[in-house]
């Protein structure tokens, strides 16, 4: 009875949420330009912002509901100025609620994202659940302009790509609200996925791999895909992906599918000296064995686990060292964890956290557990 009442209350509250989404502008769907994604560049010559919007080009006709896209590009001093001026190009007001991706050029990112991002998160027409990317190519618009082999709307493809990103974990999954949230938290640095043009056989495709590291809102460096995965391990951001494991001779032989992974970070205060202990526990399934050598004995499995654990520990350590020494940026959010566990210590550290982070003693302990061997329990045996 009480549970039913609670459920009812919950449902009513949820129904109220529906009321909060209304926009008072009456517009017909065919009278607006639906923006799929935007690329933001900076013109080096005059210092103006250049905004390129990918707009869904709706083709009429019952049998051709497949929507195409068209590109619009405009320069201006501020974002909002450009956005409104775009009406003079399209003749229709831009509709932002269904935009899926923002791509910043590296130059814009290095100069600081707040300048261009503020309008997007502030304006009432836009939504803050849009994915952000940093272009690894010279400009952002060339990625959006890619005439991909699939001829589909690139921004929607990117959104699909990000939702499947959890199966590879080679790029962080960052939405604009998340990015701004990281900027506003002390003891935390933001990251954003990097986007490339991948060229093969003369066909160009977009590829998301690796991440850009930010200090405050300015980009300071890059991590490649593998480093990004290890970085995600270090900050408990892994939801899936593959671990490749070498055999005894150092040849990559086994693939482990990550089923679940948990990272616990514990700050320790010994004699006034702060150290961090990062422990990861990864449950995996053995999904690929590139040899006929038998592994079915417990020894075989446990030795694979051991090698995997060791390799993972080294990888995580190396990415932490890299961040400490090269970039002086705590993108793992360790500062926040210290804030939670040792608030008094944090009070002393917070003003000079970037330097303290460099000096911080961080030890890593990884454990990889193989829970199953997928559909078969043994290697493929060759017949005699």
């Amino acid at each position, binding site marked *: *009875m009480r549970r*039913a*009442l609670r459920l*009812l209350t919950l449902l009513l509250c949820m129904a109220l949420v*529906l*009321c909060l*989404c*209304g*926009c*008072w*502008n*009456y*517009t*017909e*769907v*065919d009278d*607006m330009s*639906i923006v799929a994604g935007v690329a933001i560049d900076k013109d080096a010559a005059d210092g103006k912002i250049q905004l390129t919007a990918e707009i*869904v080009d*709706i*083709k*009429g*006709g*019952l049998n*051709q*509901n497949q*929507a195409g896209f068209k590109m619009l590009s405009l320069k201006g001093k501020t974002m909002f100025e450009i956005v409104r001026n775009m009406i003079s190009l399209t003749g229709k007001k831009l*509709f932002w*609620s*269904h935009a*899926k991706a923002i791509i910043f050029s590296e130059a814009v990112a290095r100069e600081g994202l707040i300048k261009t991002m503020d309008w997007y998160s502030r304006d009432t027409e836009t*939504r803050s659940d849009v994915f952000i990317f940093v272009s690894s190519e010279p400009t952002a618009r060339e990625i959006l302009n890619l005439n991909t082999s699939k001829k589909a709307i690139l921004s*929607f493809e990117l959104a699909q790509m990000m939702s499947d990103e959890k199966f590879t974990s080679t790029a962080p999954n960052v939405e604009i609200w998340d990015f701004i949230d990281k900027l506003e938290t002390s003891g935390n640095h933001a990251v954003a996925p990097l986007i490339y043009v991948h060229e093969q056989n003369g066909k160009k495709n977009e590829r998301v791999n690796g991440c850009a590291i930010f200090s405050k809102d300015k980009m300071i460096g890059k991590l490649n895909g593998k480093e990004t995965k290890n970085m995600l391990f270090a900050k408990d951001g892994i939801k899936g992906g593959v671990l490749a494991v070498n055999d005894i001779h150092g040849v990559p032989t086994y693939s482990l599918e990550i089923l679940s992974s948990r990272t616990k970070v514990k700050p320790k205060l010994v004699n006034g000296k702060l150290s961090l202990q990062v422990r990861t526990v990864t449950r995996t399934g053995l999904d690929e064995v590139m040899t006929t050598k038998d592994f079915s004995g417990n020894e075989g499995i446990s030795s694979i686990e051991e090698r995997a654990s060791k390799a993972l520990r080294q990888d995580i350590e190396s990415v932490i060292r890299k961040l400490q020494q090269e970039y002086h940026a705590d993108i793992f959010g360790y500062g926040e964890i210290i804030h939670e566990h040792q608030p008094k210590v944090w009070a002393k550290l917070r003003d000079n956290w970037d330097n303290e982070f460099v000096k911080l003693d961080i030890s890593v302990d990884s454990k990889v557990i193989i829970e199953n061997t997928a559909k078969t329990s043994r290697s493929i045996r060759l017949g005699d």
Partner: protein
Amino acid sequence: MKNTDAALGNRQDASKIPSSQPLSPSLDDNVALFRRIFSNDGTLRVRVIENNYGTLLRCGLIYVDGMTDQDLIQNGITKPVMTYPFKEEDHGNPAKLMEKIRMEIINISDIMVSTELDELVGAVVGGKTVFLLDGYAGALNINAQGWQTRAIEEPTTEKAVRGPREGFTESLIVNLTLIRRRVQNSDLKFVFSDIGTRSKTQTCICYLESLASPDILAELQGRLAQVEIDHILDTGYLAELIRDEPYSPFEMMGSTERPDTAVSKIMEGRIALMIEGSPFALTLPYVFVENFQASEDYYVNYYFASFNRFLRVIGAFMSISIPAVYVALVTYSQEMVPTKLLLSIAAARLSVPFPTIIEALIMLTIFEILREAGARIPTTIGQAVSIVGALVLGQAAVDARIVSAPMVIVVGLTGITTLLNPRLTGPMIIVRLILLFAAFFLGIYGYFFGLLGLVIHLMSLRSFGVSYMLGVGSIRPQDIKDAAIRAPWWDMYLRPARIGTRNMKRKASRKKAGSR
């Protein structure tokens, strides 16, 4: 025109004859009196019969052709009276003679003596036969009624795959037998009265004395007594005349063509109201959930019945909501529509010349036209409606880009969900339009405000003192049993709250006879 005026003048003349005028002892005078009252009425039959045993005896029969049973009159009245061997001593006292005729000669069970002229006139128009005796200032009022009625057929408005196939007819007395046959209990009461100052339509209140609330019964009788109308042709007249909340679009009394439904309502403590000439019984008090109950629910498996009821409730909700929500989403809250759906809607709407609201109104109006046309036209050309509707107005309008394809889906869904609840068709059209306009002016806010208004309106309604939304929103198991679901019969051991209050217990217990 002139004829009508003359007839009207005569009728007025006739009505000027004082009703208190006594009958004359003379047969010829009486016959002349009746002829004057029924002037210009070609159906009046006056038959003078004579008996020649001893002294000449003259009698008169007055009846209306077509409403009497000719065989009965012949074998029950004329033949016995004409052939009875009267003796000389019978003739002295006309009153005694009349008594003898009534008691010994006329072979019909229902006979009354009357001297009131207006009562006799009423009897004649009601199909009874008036027997006059020369020399006696009084008459016999003999019930030899007989007329053609429609046979008992399967009710066309409330079909059931499983369950009784009998439906009410236009004959009140046949309808009452249909009820009586299902409840063979002296507790079942039939109270008659006449309504309609000119038509004098027979009306019957039907209830179970031990269950029906005396307050509601008194209220009903009070309201019926206040009805002032010159004629009623269907219970629909009464439903409007005595209902609560005269301005609400919702029905405040149930109407059914099925005797089994009427009986089930009576057995829950409700009261049924029937009139001569209408195959629809009114049941009261009426609550909102009854709109979703079908007689078949109670005859089939309760899982299936509950599922069907769920479909009807969802259907009613969809029927009022779909056009409004579509308009609100497409013209205001495009961000709530999934991206791919929005793109396909936008593509479909491209080059459609009208705003979405006009599109919705066009299509909804066309649907209502098709519905009304389908209900009115003879069944033999009924197929033309579906051809015109489906092909010409649906496919062609989309191809010609007068309306968009999603709108056709919206209206189609609206239409089909409306058909799930035939009892709510009328109110739903109005509610749907109100919500549609609210959504057009205020977007999704407007839709929710409209819905809120609807709930407030429904909550404020009462039918004969019983809240219209009785049990809706309650989470007491007892209230849900015959509302949101149809509970198994072994579990419905109480009658509905606030209606069957005089004797709540329907069954002794929850016992299931078949289970161990």
